[in-house]
């Protein structure tokens, strides 16, 4: 089933065009797609456009319906976007924040189900111990996890995540990405996430989309995208994929190239 289809998406800020002819093969149920590219490539802008926060030209279809025609309620039901910025510091408690998100943006059929959903999400993301602690006492990593919980609590089927693991340590990066992949399969939905960590993109994403200066440079399975030529051209690094004896594929980064 097609979760998301993008065709000829163009986006401008005033007269300055920032996204050019973005088209992608359909995202299917269970897909996890990584958006990669250097700073300013257009990853966040594309995610914000897909989330409906920015106006664009072109066609975006979510579960077969045009994204611009979706009602606000249907939009909330289908997708969630997690911005790059961390949840702001305040004396709000993560537990009441998740309740307020459910209460203000979703219909709750059963209190007990909602309670269990929040508890299980906090447990999975390692937030149970701080669930009733003010946000201003939490580390950046924990606040990023609270932001992720906020995106996941409504159980949307399409997740648009902008650098969801940038403030996390390696352990939690792996836990989060494994969990997202599992969620995408269970919800019969898909995940698109912007990532700077190419190792994680290689190990966890089914497909990668390499962007540069508002355009797609390459899209496909990681092996097709993370080629030495692409990495040199877009990231200005000398790097290539290496197959190990144990059957794994690793990214071998040698040096930065002159720009």
């Amino acid at each position: 089933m097609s979760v998301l289809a993008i065709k000829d998406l163009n986006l401008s800020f005033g007269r300055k065009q920032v996204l050019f002819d973005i088209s992608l093969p359909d995202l299917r149920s269970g897909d996890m797609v990584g958006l990669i590219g250097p700073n300013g490539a257009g990853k966040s802008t594309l995610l914000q456009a897909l989330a409906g926060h920015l106006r664009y030209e072109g066609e975006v279809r979510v579960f077969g319906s045009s994204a611009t025609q979706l009602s606000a309620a249907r939009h909330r039901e289908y997708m969630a976007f997690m911005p790059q910025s961390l949840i702001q510091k305040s004396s709000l408690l993560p537990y009441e924040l998740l309740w307020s998100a459910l209460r203000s943006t979703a219909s709750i059929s059963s209190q007990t189900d909602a309670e269990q959903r929040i508890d299980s999400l906090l447990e999975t993301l390692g937030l149970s111990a701080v669930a009733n602690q003010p946000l201003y006492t939490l580390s950046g990593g924990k606040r990023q996890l609270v932001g992720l919980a906020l995106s996941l609590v409504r159980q949307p089927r399409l997740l648009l995540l902008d650098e969801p693991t940038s403030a996390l340590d390696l352990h939690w990066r792996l836990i989060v990405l494994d969990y997202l992949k599992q969620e995408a399969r269970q919800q019969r939905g898909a995940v698109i996430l912007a990532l700077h960590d190419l190792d994680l993109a290689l190990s966890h994403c089914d497909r990668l989309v390499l962007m540069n200066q508002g355009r797609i440079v390459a899209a496909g399975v990681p092996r097709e995208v993370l080629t030495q030529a692409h990495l040199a051209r877009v990231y200005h690094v000398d790097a290539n994929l290496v197959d190990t004896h144990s059957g794994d594929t690793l990214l071998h980064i040698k040096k930065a190239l002159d720009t």
Partner: protein
Amino acid sequence: MPNNVTSPLSIEYAQIKRKRLALLLAMLVAMITSLMLDISTGPANIGFFELLQGLVDPDSLEMRYRIILWDVRLPDALIAISVGAALGLAGAETQTVLNNPLASPYTLGVSALAALGASLAIVIHPSIPELSDRVVLPMMALMFALLGGFLILAFTRMTDGSREHVILFGIALVFFANAMTAGLQYVASAEAVQEIVFWTIGNLTKAGWPEFFVVTLAFLIVFPFSLRHVWAMTLIRAGESHAVSSGLNVRRMRTWVILRISVLAAFAVCFVGTIGFIGLVGPHIARLLLGEDHRFLIPGSVLCGALLLSTASVLSKALLPGVIIPVGIVTAMIGVPVFLVLIIQQRHRL
């Protein structure tokens, strides 16, 4: 929140909720105590129990004491509660919707325009002597304040409606209204200037029952709408980008909240003048005690605002025996130190 709490987190949160409810109850008791103190304080020497009896059975009091209690002290004390409640509520909503803990209902310029309206009424007063001060002045203040609210809403629609734009326009409105008021003072008579200054300080003693009922009615109309939005307002405290990403239409929310703030601030100041600091400090104290969940913060800010202004009203009569200091001076005198202490205490949270 569910009543049949089962999980450890729910049980832990239920305890936090119980503590907050107890604090709200304590605030309510403190407010009622302050109201009683306010009624029993004044130049006329009436015994406390005599007053209590007079509240239940007015005929038990001598005529002059009955007039003092029912026509002077009671409306003054009650309007302190309703104006304080309105400013506390407007302050909490302003701070949340502008995501700025230093904002107050006056940030939007509504009160500065009210002052301009009042000044205009005072200056043109001699040409329409048949209308009383109790009608023309508040009506002008109210109309100008509501005009300020309307201008901000119109500006919000013309721009992207971001909170930065709203704050900047509010500041521009304050400067414009202050300049116009200063211009009026420049051409006005010495008596008129004195009256303008007196009005802008803020004073509860001119209010009567009709004024109390009007302010209370405005508050009672707005308050349920504020309660309807408590979940969404709590979500906004995660940060605007996260609230928007959760599917909340923050711009539409902001338009509604600005409308509510404008109505509350306009009705709060039109009879008693621009009493400062209540709308700023009241929500701060409530937030410190009750946290950010607006189910508690909103009623807490209402109670804190009412308690602060009522306490200031008591002090305005008790500080100098036989003299009633304009309450706006007292709120600033107690408001500034309290505000500074709060800023120092909350520096990590702002």
